[in-house]
């Protein structure tokens, strides 16, 4: 597939994530939209890795050009898993203090 299809797909996914972060007030939905944006970046990294592989593949089918991008995606997933565990703990603490997951009440945490 042409690379720009993947770019536009990832861009649309990322924009949906941004719109979700800006329009929703439920902290968990905002968090899920951040995951959506991370996945758009992952999809684009994999597509670019296969694009570089295609250039090298014509000369040598065993070439490993573009493998770094797939390892970056792996590390992004690792960081996302760690981020979710801490973030959800923060949301649970927010709920315990304010009895709501509305992000507008986050300013109450300073007291």
């Amino acid at each position, binding site marked *: 597939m042409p690379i720009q299809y993947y770019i536009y797909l990832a861009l649309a996914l990322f924009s949906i994530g*941004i*719109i979700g*972060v*800006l329009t929703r007030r439920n902290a968990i939905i905002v968090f*899920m939209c951040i995951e959506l944006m991370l996945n758009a970046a992952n999809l684009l990294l994999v597509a670019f890795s296969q694009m570089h592989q295609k250039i090298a593949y014509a000369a040598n089918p065993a070439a490993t050009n573009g493998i770094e991008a797939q390892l970056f995606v792996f590390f992004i997933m690792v960081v996302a898993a760690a981020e979710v565990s801490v973030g959800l703990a923060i949301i*649970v*603490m927010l709920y315990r203090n304010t009895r709501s997951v509305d992000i507008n009440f986050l300013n109450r945490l300073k007291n």
Partner: protein
Amino acid sequence: MNLVQILFWFLSALTLFSALMVILSKNPVHSVLWLILVFFAISGHYVLLNAQFLAIVNLIVYAGAIMVLFLFVIMLLNLNKETEPKKNIWMKLAGTIAGGCFLISVSNVIYNAQTGSAELANKATLMGKGSIGLIETLGKTLFTDYVIPFEISSVLFLSAMVGAVIIGKKD
């Protein structure tokens, strides 16, 4: 249109529709279920691109572990349609316009990049071929060139675990 193209368009439509439903659903549980569908569709994209290891890891880590964590928290907090915070319609409109402006401006940049330079023109991805997505090649690179970041990520997990326990502790 061959099979790969049909699958690409189907998975793209599924991804975008499910992503829209994530932000449009009123019930947070429905949002989580739509997000799981997004992850399945993205895993399908990875399979089409022959990134088999990432497809499976995406399913196990995202759809399996992270989404179950989200569902646990939503059900623990007993969130549903009634507890959903209401937002001002003007704020919603402003957020949508801001996101739409981002979409239009960046897609214009990409359109100019692919017509004005040779950097993106006539480039395509390799579909279903190549060995870099296989676990054998990835594992070799991960444990030779990237072994230090790999080990550091285990420290990251340990600190995240300790942090989550300390933050979530009732005191």
